[in-house]
């Protein structure tokens, strides 16, 4: 009986201590990077288009506990998913034109470096983009972005709502690497 009381007391005190602590990262959170860092710890990343955004909003709290994500991290992932599932035609035309002029902004907007390295910076879920065009060709790159699973059925790469202008600008930028 004494042992049982001790167990309950220790558990309650420990749980209370835990909940009183609150430590957050000061680094800005990238949803793509969080997907890169966490999903593949246990399983292949699921294609974002597999579920609707309203479904992801129910699924992500389940994954929050499973993968030990914080609330802010879940929010960052959902924001990235919103970008990845927003049809290109719904985007602001002026913004698209401006982004297309700067391929680095395109990389940022679609979170490419969450999973791929460019000039040594970025995630490792996917291959580096530095030599992708020189090694596999421009046609491969263009098709891979448009049809991410065409050469690898288990690829987790989402089909981004990238415009043709943005894609061309990105291909030009990566060709110069």
């Amino acid at each position: 009986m004494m042992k049982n009381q001790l167990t309950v007391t220790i558990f309650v005190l420990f749980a209370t201590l835990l909940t009183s602590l609150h430590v957050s990262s000061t680094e800005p959170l990238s949803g793509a990077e969080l997907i890169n860092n966490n999903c593949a710890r246990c399983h292949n990343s699921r294609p974002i288009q597999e579920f609707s955004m309203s479904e992801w909003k129910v699924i992500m709290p389940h994954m929050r506990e499973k993968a030990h994500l914080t609330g802010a991290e879940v929010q960052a992932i959902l924001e990235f998913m919103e970008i990845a599932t927003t049809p290109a035609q719904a985007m602001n035309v002026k913004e698209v034109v401006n982004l297309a002029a700067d391929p680095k902004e395109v990389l940022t907007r679609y979170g490419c470096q969450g999973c791929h390295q460019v000039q040594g910076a970025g995630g490792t879920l996917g291959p580096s983009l530095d030599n992708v065009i020189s090694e596999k060709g421009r046609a491969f790159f263009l098709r891979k972005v448009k049809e991410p699973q065409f050469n690898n059925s288990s690829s987790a790469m989402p089909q981004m709502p990238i415009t043709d202008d943005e894609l061309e600008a990105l291909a030009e930028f990566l060709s110069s690497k």
Partner: protein
Amino acid sequence: MRMKKTLRLATILSAGLMISQPLYAAESSERFVFVGYGDVKYESADVAGTDAFSARFVPIFLFSLNDKMHVEAELEVGLNADGETETELEYADIHYFLNDNTTITAGKFLLPFGQFSANWHPSWINRSIWTPGIYGAHGSSQAMDPMLPILSDVGVAAQQVYQVGSAKVFLDVFMTNGPRSEAEHDEEEVDDDHDIALARLFSPAASIDLDADEDEHGEAFPEVEFEATSSDNNSNKAFGGRIAVALLPSIEIGTSYYQGAYDENGQLDIKANGVDINLISTHAILRGEYIRTETDAFVERDHEDVIDSFSRNGWFLQGTFFIGHVFDGLGSTEIVIEHAQTKKVEEAERWMVGVNYWLDPRSVIKVGYEDTDVVDGPDDKRFAVQFSYGF
């Protein structure tokens, strides 16, 4: 009286924590999602003498009550050898997101002991067709005597996530109803080791007979049953937890603890320690766990019954190699190699080799061969083909 005070204290503290947070946050536009996984398997096994197809369907129901509360439940539905449909409640719990870093869980949940139980055992996630030898076969049978089942129990848990520099620290604690002596439930026929911990206790001095139900003194070997129930055979709750450090996306290392009294008087404990590792790279995944259990039992010493403790230990290491990343023509093919050992009591070791082909990121065809060498018992060889899918 003291117990009442302790419970009162726990209630007051919990209530205080709850009312410090707004109970209702903004409603999500969607509340319910139906996901899950399933598999179909053909297996040929020597010891079990089976050569058959089998199938399972494991629906997961997710409800988002609001931004603070989330309900989840998983059922496992399968056919047994007699054609009867078996259904098991794998988990059914509610998460309360107390703050950005803290989650409180209550209900029936997968215990955060190691990683295999909590995260890796679903067939579309586990790279092998079978569970590692140190864990129960989870619905089928195996020649290797496991150390623990897939742990799931009824109680409460708390989870905390810390960001420490570039590392993340995960802390989980839980308190549940706990295990009980299998002897108390001998009226229930046990056909396989599903949710039964085969933590058999053998006197070190006794000769080990794996098939015997009694030792040389005619005393029954105690067994510990972990199957979750909404009751407790003693007033002692099981407790434990896991602490892990993760340098994402590449490394996660954790250590776990479990302790629970299993007899009616709460005098005999089973304790388990574990270490788990998960290394992820672009070309391979390496997963492994080491478990050590200590189980108390009454033994006769100088004509008196005294409590002694008997230990077992075991480990597994599973390597998955993405050969399709090296040879373009192989697409999403991967090779899996696994080794597992149990020591001290019921020693055995197992090699497994398999080839997986992913049809898409959540559907895989696995082909595997397993060779189990049991020191004091029949060896086993198994071959299987499994089609697993997540949905």
